[in-house]
């Protein structure tokens, strides 16, 4: 038995001239919450479509619990539930009818937990889908997916359109799923959400996984931010390898240091420093670092 909930081998997808996904190697362990980050058009939704066997890989393979998602999608989907970024549901069905229909197609659902979720997400299930706002349609999808208690939840920007209260409800629900040992694959733009929920994070850029690891690992590999205030006007420092300098004020400089801070400290030694602060980069900074690199701004 394969203990990886999601595994991809050289997963590649080409649409005409566009290379949407380029040799993706993913390994999401059973029971972990995995954050999948990337700017628009990086290939996140393409990845999920390949993971679900909705699109055919140009090369490589995708497995859910060891089952090839393209060759045997029905078996693969038995242990997975999906929440799409854009909620496409049957406009003429009510919320209740939609939940019943989706549960029947899946084969089983936890009715008691479903009712808990309907309450938690304050869903009016008598309303027809066509009369629901985008956020409310999103809630229908979330309730349906979490109520199945599937071993793997594939969530594609699931909180787009939810208000802050519902965002809180969503986080609580993900943590409950994690406690039960379910695996969550969370593709998201909301960095605070990923930071709060995810054990590991992967960053996708132009169809390639450019960084992956726990938040601590990513921080370690990423630039540290150091801000230095001088007694007089900020001096000109010689260029240093792995150090990026920005002016932070008339008497202050901000450094982004990749690797050791030793050379920077040596370069600062001759100057009169009044204050030096250093902090770990936030996920946002890590993300922006990769994002900027994609645009050639670093």
């Amino acid at each position, binding site marked *: 038995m394969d203990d990886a909930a999601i595994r991809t081998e050289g997963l590649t997808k080409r649409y005409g001239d566009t290379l949407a996904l380029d040799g993706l190697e993913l390994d999401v362990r059973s029971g972990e919450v995995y954050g999948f980050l990337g700017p628009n058009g990086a290939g996140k939704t393409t990845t999920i479509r390949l993971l679900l066997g909705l*699109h055919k890989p140009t090369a490589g393979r995708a497995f859910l619990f060891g089952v090839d998602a393209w060759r045997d999608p029905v078996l693969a*989907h038995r242990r997975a539930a999906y929440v799409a970024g854009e909620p*496409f549901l049957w406009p003429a069905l009510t919320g209740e009818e939609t939940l019943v229909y989706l549960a029947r*197609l899946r084969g089983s659902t936890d009715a008691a937990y479903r009712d808990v979720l309907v309450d938690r997400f304050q869903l009016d299930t*008598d*309303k027809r889908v066509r009369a629901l706002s985008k956020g409310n349609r999103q809630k229908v999808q979330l309730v349906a997916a979490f109520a199945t208690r599937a071993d793997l939840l594939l969530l594609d920007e699931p909180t787009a359109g939810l208000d802050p209260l519902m965002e809180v409800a969503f986080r609580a629900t993900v943590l409950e799923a994690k406690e039960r040992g379910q695996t969550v694959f969370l593709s998201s733009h909301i960095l605070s959400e990923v930071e709060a929920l995810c054990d590991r994070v992967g960053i996708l850029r132009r169809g390639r996984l450019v960084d992956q690891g726990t938040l601590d690992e990513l921080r370690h590999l990423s630039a540290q931010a150091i801000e230095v205030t001088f007694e007089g006007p900020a001096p000109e420092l010689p260029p240093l390898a792995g150090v990026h300098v920005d002016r932070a004020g008339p008497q202050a400089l901000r450094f982004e240091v990749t690797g050791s801070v030793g050379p920077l400290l040596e370069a600062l030694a001759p100057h009169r420093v009044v204050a030096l602060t250093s902090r770990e980069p936030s996920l946002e900074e890590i993300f922006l670092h990769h994002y900027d690199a994609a645009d050639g701004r670093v």
Partner: protein
Amino acid sequence: MSDAARAFARRTLADSRVRTLSFAAFFAVIAAVNVVGYRKTYPTVADRIRFAVGFGANKSIRLFYGVPHDLLSVGGYAAWRAGGSLSIAAAVWGVLAAVRAMRAEEDAGRQELVLAGAIGRSGAFGAMLVAIATGGVALWLAMFVGLVAARLPAGGSAFLALAVVSVVPVFVGVGAVASQVAPTRRLALGIGSGAVALAFVLRVVADTSSGLEALRWATPLGWVEELRAFASPRPAVLLLPLAAATALLVAARAIAMRRDVGSGLFHAHDSAPPRDRLLGSPTAQALRGELGILAAWVLGIAGFAFILGVISNSISPADIPASLQQQLEKLGLSSITTPSGYLSFTFLFFVFAIALFACSQAAATRREEAEQLLETLLALPVGRRRWLAGRIVLAAGASCVLALLAGVCAWAGAAAEGADVALGGMVGAGANALPASLLFLGIGMLAFAAVPRATAAVAYGLASLAFVWELFGAIVGAPSWTLNLSPFHHIGLVPAQPFRPAAAAVMLAVAAASAVAALAVFERRDLTGP
């Protein structure tokens, strides 16, 4: 017109260009083919007199083309044949164009974006009308060119084309009102198609029942006949479509200015107690979704078949002089002079209609994918093969119901009038519609699997082309091997003609092979968005 309104009108026009150009090509070809065919088939005055005496009185022919006013001149014949059939096409185009511009865009949520820009409701309404009117002018021009190319005089051709296109503004008005009243594209299209069907039935009744001729004034399709192009033109009749169109468009505009964007005058019920029926499988749910459409088809087919049955009783051999029997023999219509023979011939109409129903099911299958509902479905433990097979079975089953219903209702109509028509024969006539219908279903589904975005175009296009070729191919003297290309050419119109089992078997075999190929191809492709 403001820049914004101009830009919006151009967008609306571009949206419908494929459909409008297809209709325009159809208009030009049908117009030219009828003229050329008449000259070729009836070269002498004597031929034409014989033809006029026979066909002028024949009610079954009137069903499709209306009442002829002058069958001795080429122009009069063109006005009858091309005018009678193209005016129906023009009505359909008018409804489709209006609903596409005025409801479909809004149903898809795009209209909010337009109205949030530098264009008001009034400006948008005007711009849509300008775009639709441009399409209507294209239809007029196409028909005019088709007639003139076949060497008819320009003045008469212009008037005939105008007479046919006169139904466009009326049915654009109908479509516009339907679009304001109905909250969804589907309902608006349903109301519009219902109006076209009603107009057609009124014309059929007026043209074929003695004593009810006055009903012709109650339908825009009848006005086209009363314009009497090439026979004794009566331009004053044009005031009728003008008045009707104006009234409808004024009403539509008034509603458009008052109602909420994104909803119709009649609100759909937003809340409902849950109903669990037909939610057990994707096929059951598809049936649930299609029930309204199916009911409309059932009503339309049953009602029309019943009316034809009633009319059939008024058919008698006395309608056709003996000298014409030979001519009819040539067209394969020798037994048309009995009620049962008449119904056999008219069932070619149901063969085509039920084939179109099959095409509409292929198009609905594609729409489920284009609206990305299929993505939601296939992310669940639902197999592609099972899903598509379910849709095919559903469409085939519904086609069977419609076909048998047509036969039974035609018999019931005839029996109600005491006509000598056997139930078994009419059930056979209905069942005989199935091979062609299933053939186009198979082809439509294969198109869905192989070229998803072109599903509707391929299915409707091939079925219409094959039918038109069957109606007109022989008239223009096309070589027989090209006539054989149309599946409709191989249908024995039972019970008058013998059933052709070999042709039916070939059609069913191709249908089955296409369906199997569709399942295999669909399993190998990416889901394709709108």
